[in-house]
């Protein structure tokens, strides 16, 4: 198995792409899809796997620059990162690369070069195509589709994995259908969401023939540097006055800001988390009742909720439940955070469950926001719940 390095996706694919199989990132126009193939090859090569990148629309040196913008230093991969230059031939430029396609507009010339690389690779590796759509534009749709079959056979023979970036430009219906259904062992669709209040991008598995298909889609965001992150645009942190909401947002976030006056939040806390392939924007609400209109305002479009409770302050638990109503969060994933567990009077999560009369399936997790203890565990639990809902 060769991992794709895309958060969530390797889970959906039961570990990644098996040797000798192929995968296509089928991207809708207008969505930045190239980064998927880029991230996959860098993840593989940085894990010691031999990687070949077939450059069809960009000068090889510019490609290396593009990678380094994401923080992926291809020169550090000790020769495990090989570029097939199918670009310089188009503009009549000289090439510094070991593998050069003499006539990128001739599919046979390309095939010849690709076969040569596959033969000469010292061990099974991964071959990523920068842009299958560019190859189609240059060599013709049906010619390219025929060549794909040949490449797949060869890859199977030598146990290499094949990965394509493909943008679904208005090719013939037949070609698009073929790419979507037949030519690869796995198809990952990469698309955009428009029309909703949140404008976002998602990916999901359309096809996979080595494991059961997971019909889930994952929102993502591309960070520079960083690459693709599974992304949750809004997680709400609410709860009674003084429960530790602002402290929690700051403990969790890589960077955060609070609009606090005289020690209490009067507008909101906002933080951004980037952790283990997951990114999220976190919105903390005020806790005092006079700000309830703001709580309601902030909670729109939230995808998951933390309810923070001061575990020593039982009298405020009712208010906590009430705040869940104010946020109109019924049906959304909720994690209750039993905060201030460092204090001797703190109730345990189970005691809190009884006080709140919460059913057993509601997550109540212990934390000390002041030191950060339990904060990331709570985050990972909520992220899992939010991603499951899709």
């Amino acid at each position, binding site marked *: 198995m060769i991992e794709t390095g895309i958060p969530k996706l390797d889970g959906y694919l039961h570990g990644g792409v098996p040797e000798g199989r192929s995968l296509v990132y089928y991207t809708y126009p207008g969505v930045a899809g190239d980064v998927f193939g880029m991230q996959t090859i860098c993840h593989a090569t940085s894990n010691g796997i031999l990687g070949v990148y077939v450059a069809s629309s960009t000068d090889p040196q510019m490609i290396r620059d593009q990678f380094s913008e994401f923080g992926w230093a291809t020169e550090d991969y000790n020769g495990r990162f090989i570029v097939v230059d199918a670009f310089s031939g188009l503009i009549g430029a000289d090439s510094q690369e070991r593998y050069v396609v003499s006539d990128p507009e001739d599919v046979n010339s390309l095939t010849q070069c690709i076969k040569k690389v596959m033969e000469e690779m010292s061990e099974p590796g991964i071959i990523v195509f920068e842009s299958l759509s560019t190859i189609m534009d240059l060599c013709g749709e049906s010619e390219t589709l025929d060549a794909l079959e040949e490449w797949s056979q060869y890859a199977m023979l030598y146990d290499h994995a094949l990965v394509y970036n493909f943008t679904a430009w208005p090719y013939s219906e037949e070609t698009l259908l073929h790419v979507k259904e037949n030519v690869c062992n796995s198809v990952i669709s990469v698309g955009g969401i428009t029309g909703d209040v949140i404008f976002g991008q998602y990916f999901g598995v359309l096809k996979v023939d080595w494991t059961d298909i997971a019909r889930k889609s994952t929102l993502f965001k591309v960070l520079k540097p960083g690459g693709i992150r599974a992304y949750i645009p809004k997680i709400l942190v609410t709860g009674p006055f003084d429960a530790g909401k602002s402290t929690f947002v700051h403990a969790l976030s890589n960077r955060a800001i609070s*609009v*606090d006056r005289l020690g209490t939040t*009067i*507008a*909101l806390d906002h933080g951004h988390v980037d952790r283990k392939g997951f990114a999220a924007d976190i919105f903390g609400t*005020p806790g*005092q009742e006079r700000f309830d*209109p*703001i709580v309601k305002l902030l909670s729109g479009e939230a995808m998951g909720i933390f309810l923070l409770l001061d575990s020593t302050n039982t009298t405020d638990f009712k208010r906590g439940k009430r705040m869940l109503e104010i946020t109109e969060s019924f049906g959304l994933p909720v994690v209750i955070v039993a905060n201030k567990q460092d204090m001797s009077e703190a109730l345990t999560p189970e005691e809190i469950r009884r006080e709140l009369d919460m059913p057993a399936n509601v997550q109540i997790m212990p934390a000390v926001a002041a030191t950060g203890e339990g904060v990331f565990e709570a985050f990972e639990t909520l992220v899992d719940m939010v991603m499951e809902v899709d």
Partner: protein
Amino acid sequence: MSTSEMLGKVLAGLGKVGEIEASAISTRDGLLMNADMHAAGDPETFVAMSATMLGAAETATSELGKSVPNRVIVETDDGKLICMGAGPKALVVVMTAPDAGLGLVLVEMAKAAEKIERLI
């Protein structure tokens, strides 16, 4: 005279400016200290939201590396809502008539803000 009564006098002074229809003083965290509302709505929520606006505006400008705003002015068809800090602990907020001229109102508010700061 208690502080509250003195703040009441400051608001009464603002009320004499014909174009000011309602006014209130609160802590920076949005707790009502005194209001002269002429029964126009709920002063508690009014001042809490004013504190939110002013605080959010201050954070927004300082995020851009700019200085703290002198005031927040909200224009509606029925008048203007003006919110101004009164020292580090308090703020003053007024609602004006639709056709009110800003000049006089702002001068009177600045005077009131200075008095409030010294009273608390």
